[in-house]
């Protein structure tokens, strides 16, 4: 379990306008970059929390803070019940962090097996458990047949899998994955997702994933949090967020959209709005388009009946919003 409240992180970055030789320069040498602005977060046991946001939003920064590798300027937090500031070492050893690109830690002149044996021991796996733990991790990422190969000969996706395997070696209550499936093929990615859901979250681990793959987040995250420029924009159960921010709608193709029809539709309790969307031609028929928002999916019969009484109904499509739509709407709406 992780709880953060009011986390703020301010980086000092070199001021590009500063000139060392201009003694009386107005600009100071460093300027401040606030990467996180008052982030509250709660990740529970057995759930997968997705952190989404554009490049530079602060996802990695947040991950590093939760892993105890970065000290924030403000805020409090506990990781696995340990205070993030006062019990740093215990908090740190409660977390397995995997970062994209952290395969660079491996020695290219040692086999995958030897590399994982070393890192297993470093992460606290006793010798006697090493073999079984490594076997399990390699199977989870689909590298079990490669154990005697050398990292220098692996494809970039395989290297990524290898570093994921490294992260799975030590049994810790919290797993943080920073873009785990970037570079990984769809079949392996599915395999890894299933593993995260069944073997990690399913066994009571706390899992936090940052990703740009919204489709993936939609599939596995129980809850998501969207951040941009260090600010939390929304947080909540994935389904609920989709409903609130996306909203499902029905796209209806019919012979004519009359004012009466719109009036009749909007009179229905489950309809929020009926909107004219213009017209198209299809196979010689003029079709008018109508967008009906509201709880249309579960009331599809009533909707069809209401429309079909007076009109020729060509087609009705229920559109469910994807997380992608929601993300675009929220992040773009922010700008």
């Amino acid at each position, binding site marked *: 379990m992780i709880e953060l409240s009011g986390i703020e992180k301010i980086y000092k970055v070199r001021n590009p306008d500063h000139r060392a030789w201009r003694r009386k320069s107005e600009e100071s040498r460093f300027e401040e970059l606030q990467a996180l602005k008052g982030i509250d977060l709660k990740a529970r046991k057995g759930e997968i929390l997705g952190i989404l946001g554009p490049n530079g939003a602060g996802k990695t920064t947040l991950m590093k803070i939760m892993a105890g590798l970065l*000290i924030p300027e403000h805020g409090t937090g506990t990781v696995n019940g340990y205070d993030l500031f006062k019990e740093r070492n215990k908090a740190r050893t409660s*977390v397995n962090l995997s970062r994209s690109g952290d395969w660079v830690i491996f020695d290219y002149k040692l086999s995958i097996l030897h590399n994982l044996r070393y890192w297993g021991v470093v992460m606290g796996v006793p010798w006697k458990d090493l073999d079984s733990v490594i076997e399990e991790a390699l199977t989870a990422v689909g590298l079990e047949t490669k154990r005697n190969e050398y990292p220098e000969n692996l494809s970039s996706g395989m290297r990524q899998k290898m570093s994921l395997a490294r992260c799975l070696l030590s049994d810790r209550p919290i797993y943080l994955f920073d873009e785990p499936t970037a570079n990984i093929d769809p079949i392996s990615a599915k395999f890894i997702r299933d593993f995260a859901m069944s073997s990690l979250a399913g066994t009571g681990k706390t899992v936090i994933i940052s990703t740009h793959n919204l489709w993936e987040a939609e599939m596995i995250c129980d809850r998501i949090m969207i951040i941009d420029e260090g600010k939390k924009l929304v947080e909540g159960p994935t389904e609920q967020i989709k409903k609130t921010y996306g909203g499902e709608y029905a796209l209806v193709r019919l012979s004519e959209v009359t004012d009466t029809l719109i009036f009749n539709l909007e009179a229905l309790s489950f309809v929020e709005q009926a909107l004219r969307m213009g017209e198209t031609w299809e196979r010689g028929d003029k079709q008018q388009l109508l967008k009906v928002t509201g709880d249309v999916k579960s009331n599809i019969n009533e909707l069809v009946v209401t429309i079909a009484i007076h009109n020729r109904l060509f087609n009705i499509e229920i559109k469910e919003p994807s997380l992608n739509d929601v993300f675009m709407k929220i992040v773009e709406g922010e700008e």
Partner: protein
Amino acid sequence: MSRAQASVSEDTKHSLPPKQRLEYVASYVARRGRLWYRFKISFLFTLVSMMIAISIWFFFNFIFGEGGAKAIAEQDFGSNYFTYVLIGVIINQYIVITITLYMGTLQDSYWQNQLEMYITSPGRMGTFFLSSIVWTYLYSSINVLIYFAVGIFVFGATIALSPAGILILIVILFILIVALSGIGLISASMFFLINAKGDVEPISWFVVTLTGLVSGVFYPPEIFITHFPPLYALSKLFPQTYAIQGIRRVLINGADFASPEILSIILTLAIFAVILFPLGIYAFKAGIRKAEREGKLTRWT
């Protein structure tokens, strides 16, 4: 675009036109210049290192002759000068290794992006450094054995080794390692504290370079009393000066725990250790903390 122009631009794919070549050279020179400028301090250090090496050779002048190092050493230890220097040089290896080990180990892990892993390991940095010490000592002990074997069997160095002597050696070396680890850790802390990520770190450089000059590796520090007294005082500020003296006493004179000189050396070393080691840990932790604040435990965020 005319045909002629087109063919010119076609050619540029295979070779650079003169102007571009010039630009290339200029860019390269600028880059090297920038890199050199960033590490300009290291050039200074190299210069001073050379000066000190030269002065070591200068003081070799005083090895021979009346009141010279050779005479003092042979008179003091009653041995030949070769045995004296052999021991000095070998111990100096250990000293240099210990002082530079922490920075080297930290640096390697940093450049390989491993530091975060070691920090989140239940073994923390302590176990990591310890592993590194053990490996380095095992590794360099092979060198040392070869040195001693060749020194004794080929060049006739005379070494006195008793069980009690071995015990004293272990005690002295252990306390020396603890004390020098303090210096090593302070040196390693500079990696983050003053961003000493280039090739020269001032603290270890200072101690390592001066050890050769003043700590009695090649000649007794006593020769400075007549030739240059400040260096004699400086020699007293380094734990290794005492350790080298003590180890020579054991290996040449077969001194044991009954010797008051040995006891005072052990005590002095212990004082160094008690002061330097906690200081080293403190500095090192401060360095890591700074990196944790800046998000610079790894090279790339």
